[in-house]
Every structure is written in structure tokens, then in C-alpha cells.
């Protein structure tokens, strides 16, 4: 980020914090994709992902004053979205998956369409914590050290979830 864009970003966040509705709408449009995708990959249901996204942004709106920068707000969004999704998954009865088949479809998938859908389905079958680790690692491109801070997990647990999840995915794919 160069000095100009950093300044523009700071000015835009200052406007959001000052209660500028247009600036807040811009911030929502910029980040809704990330929050919605986290919800979708975690919950495997588009309606549930949209509800989660709405709840997270409403909570953000209430807490804007406590977030100093746009980067801080972005980390906060990611953290709250994943924790809320994990809580929802833990509350779901074991028999109900709440799955929505279309949640696995991505018409813009640039790779092997069937493999992509199969991988999304397999990731969705992982238990909540490893699923969150995999989604943050491969959707958000986060390092294990960033993931451990986001999920409040020891680094070794994150690494072990990642290793085991990859092994499970590889085994199920083959």
C-alpha cells in the first residue's frame, strides 16, 4: 500500500467512524464478499451465510468506535465471522447438516469444476475447528501464525489441524 492509498484508506475509515452512511456502505461493499464467503464455506448454506454476514456487519456498526483502522476492522470482521460460524455449527444438532447443495457451486471456478465442487463438499465435512483453519488458510491466504491469533488457538494446534485436514482430504479424493 503506497502513501496515497494509505492516506485515502485512513480518510475513508475516519468518515466511517464519523457516521458517514455512504462511507459505511462503501466499506460494507468492499468487505461483504470476504465475510459472506467465510460464512458460506463454514456453514455450507447461502441463506445462513447471508444472515451471518448481516449480523456481523450490524455488530461492526455498533462497535465502530472501538476499531482504530480499516485494517483492524478487517481483522475484526474475519475473526467475528469465523467464531460466529463455529458457534452455529456447534449448536446444530448432529443429524442436521443444514446443507444447501447450490452453496457448493461456483460458476466462476477457474479450475476443474467437478474437483472444485468435490473439494468444497469435503472441506464442509471437516469438524468446525479444522474447517475454519482450512478456510482461513486457503480462502484468506493467512499464515498459521495469523490463523492462531484469529481463532485463539495454539500455533501447534493450527498446524496439526492443517496437516490432518490435508491428509483427510487427500485420502477422500483418492
Amino acid at each position, binding site marked *: 500500500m503506497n502513501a496515497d492509498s494509505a492516506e485515502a484508506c485512513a480518510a475513508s475509515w475516519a468518515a466511517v467512524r464519523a457516521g458517514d452512511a455512504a462511507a459505511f456502505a462503501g466499506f460494507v461493499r468492499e468487505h*461483504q464478499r470476504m465475510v*459472506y464467503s467465510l460464512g458460506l464455506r463454514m456453514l455450507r448454506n447461502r441463506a445462513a451465510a447471508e444472515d451471518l454476514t448481516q449480523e456481523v456487519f450490524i455488530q461492526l456498526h455498533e462497535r465502530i468506535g472501538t476499531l482504530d483502522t480499516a485494517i483492524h476492522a478487517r481483522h475484526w470482521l474475519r475473526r467475528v465471522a469465523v467464531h460466529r460460524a463455529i458457534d452455529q455449527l456447534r449448536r446444530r444438532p448432529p443429524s442436521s447438516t443444514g446443507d444447501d447443495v447450490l452453496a457448493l457451486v*461456483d460458476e*466462476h471456478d*477457474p*479450475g476443474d469444476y467437478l474437483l*472444485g465442487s468435490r473439494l468444497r463438499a469435503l472441506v464442509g465435512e471437516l469438524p468446525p475447528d479444522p474447517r475454519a483453519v482450512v*478456510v482461513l488458510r486457503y480462502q484468506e491466504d493467512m499464515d498459521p501464525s495469523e490463523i492462531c491469533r484469529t481463532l485463539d488457538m495454539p500455533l501447534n494446534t493450527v498446524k496439526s489441524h492443517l496437516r490432518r485436514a*490435508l491428509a483427510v482430504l487427500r485420502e477422500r479424493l483418492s
Partner: protein
Amino acid sequence: MTHDLEQELRRALQPVDPSPEFAARLLTGIAIARDRAGAVRQRWWRPTALAASVVLAIGLGFLVYQHQQRERAHAQLLEALAITSHSLDRAYRAVRWHGSDTGEHGG
């Protein structure tokens, strides 16, 4: 294989957009939540201010009452001291009077 799988995962888990009308719905939802929160704050504000005023008035009244009680006690003390002083003065004069009488008769 690990590298390939990781590449495939990155591709499969690329972020996706919600439905096109979602942002508008989201912003409407936030506006409704904000109005509701504002209304709740307003609903609580009046009774809270009223209760605070009543407590303040009672407190002030109590302080004024205490002050008046102290003033009254002070005035009563001064009056009692004045009466005592007056009585002592009279007693002293009576004793002196009788003393001078005894002196005259006995001398």
C-alpha cells in the same frame, strides 16, 4: 501432490459474491437495527433522567434539612448557654450579697 492439493484448495475456496441485491438488503437491515437501538436508547433515557432527578431532589432536600437541623441545634445551644450564664451570674450575685451580709453582722 501436497502442492497440487493446496493449489486446488486455493482455487476451490476463492471468495464468492453474495446475491447482487444483498448489499442493499444488508444496509437496510443495518439502518433498521440502528433505528431500533436509537428508539430503545430514547425509551430508556426519559425514565432514567426522571429517576435521576428525583434522587437528586431527595438528596438535596435531605442536605437542606440537615443544615437547618444543625442551625437550630446551634441556636438552641447558644440560648442554653446564655440562660446558664445568666443563672450563674444571678447565683454569684446572690452569694456575694449574702456573703457581704454575713460579714457585716459577724464583724
